[in-house]
């Protein structure tokens, strides 16, 4: 086994898919190099470059964090685009909750469409009555 499959994906697109004979990345405990036949490894990814080497070609991608999964013949890099921090998550959780409470307090909705729909229904109903009346005449 002299090469392995590599796929690098971020949450909104596939960044790289192909084969390589060596891959370098910044793991959460430091720089790692992965050669074909590496034993299964699961580690976090630190912001930094991911280098994919194939024969004499080398491609570099920037990942702002995420995870890397290594199987003997497949390497999957799950990259985050969004900046992440636990403190940020917390703030967002609070914001989402507050929004829900606020909306419960004042129950409003966009009524424009409902208005238009009821107008159309009314017009149709009126037309029907007119037609019925005409038949009677």
């Amino acid at each position, binding site marked *: 086994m002299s090469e392995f499959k590599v*796929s690098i994906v*971020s949450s909104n697109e596939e960044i790289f898919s192909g084969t390589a004979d060596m891959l370098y990345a910044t793991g959460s405990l430091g720089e790692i190099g992965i050669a074909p036949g590496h034993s299964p*490894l*699961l580690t*976090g990814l630190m912001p930094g470059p991911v280098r994919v080497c194939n024969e004499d070609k080398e491609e570099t991608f920037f990942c702002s964090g995420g995870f890397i*999964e290594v199987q003997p013949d497949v390497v*999957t890099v799950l990259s985050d685009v969004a900046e992440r921090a636990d403190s940020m998550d917390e703030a967002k959780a609070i914001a989402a909750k507050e929004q829900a409470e606020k909306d419960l307090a004042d129950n409003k*909705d966009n009524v424009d469409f409902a208005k238009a729909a009821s107008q*159309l229904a009314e017009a149709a109903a009126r*037309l029907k009555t007119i037609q019925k009346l005409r038949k009677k005449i």
Partner: protein
Amino acid sequence: MANTKEVRKQISSIKSTRKITSALEMVAASKIKKTQDLMFGGRPYSEKVKEVIEHIASSSSEYSHPFYEERKNKSTCYIVVGSDKGLCGGLNINLFKKIVAEAAENQKNDVETSFALIGVKAVTFFGNLGGKVLGQATKLGDKPNPEDLIGLTKIVLDEQKKGNIDRVVLCSNKFVNTMTQQPTLQQLIPLSHGENKESQTSMQWDYIYEPEAKTLLDGLLTRYIESLIFQAVLENNACEQAAKMIAMKNATENAGDLIKELELLYNNVRQAAITQELSEIVGGAAAV
């Protein structure tokens, strides 16, 4: 009998409604492509995360995560993905009906029900219904950002870890094609262990975890669930635009039919008025 003025007024009002619906139809048609591209763009990530999660499930890990834990179902949380805007036919209501049916079933079995809501329409509907709402995310727009969903997901997952929620279900519309959208309920937690075909045939193995299994799995599983929810939002967006286009197309056609009928009526009324006037003149002349 209706007079000509009244019918004319109606024709012009329906015409202006038709203008609106046909404009909305065109807007939806132009957005379909974009939302579908986003939906397909998000698929590789969710597929890859799923693969990794399946690998983890088939490995004999030293650490068992709470998301895999099968508990007695006492409390279920529904993460509902709805659209922000209406005018998209029965898209939202078909999904909501399904959830309400399940919630009623839950009530019978003494299972508590709570909701985490995405989209203005979901918030309005379940707010009026009066369920327990854990959190909400609205106005994500045509290009949703994964960051906007982090807060909502965190609330639900934290409640699950605390033991307040035993089951989490993701409710959204699946995009089949432009004509068909399928309302689906998908169980997120407990995660299924999958079919352990591999582990039966091959040896037991485990990952080398760096730094440690707990933190890594925690992060990865959270990311997995976030990606599923995000993908559902993208898919729902594509569904919304498709459903909107069809609904507006029908509305435009109906308005056209209505205008035709009204125009016929208008001509009849006008002709009747003329005939009446003529006969009056003739009658008057005869009297003289």
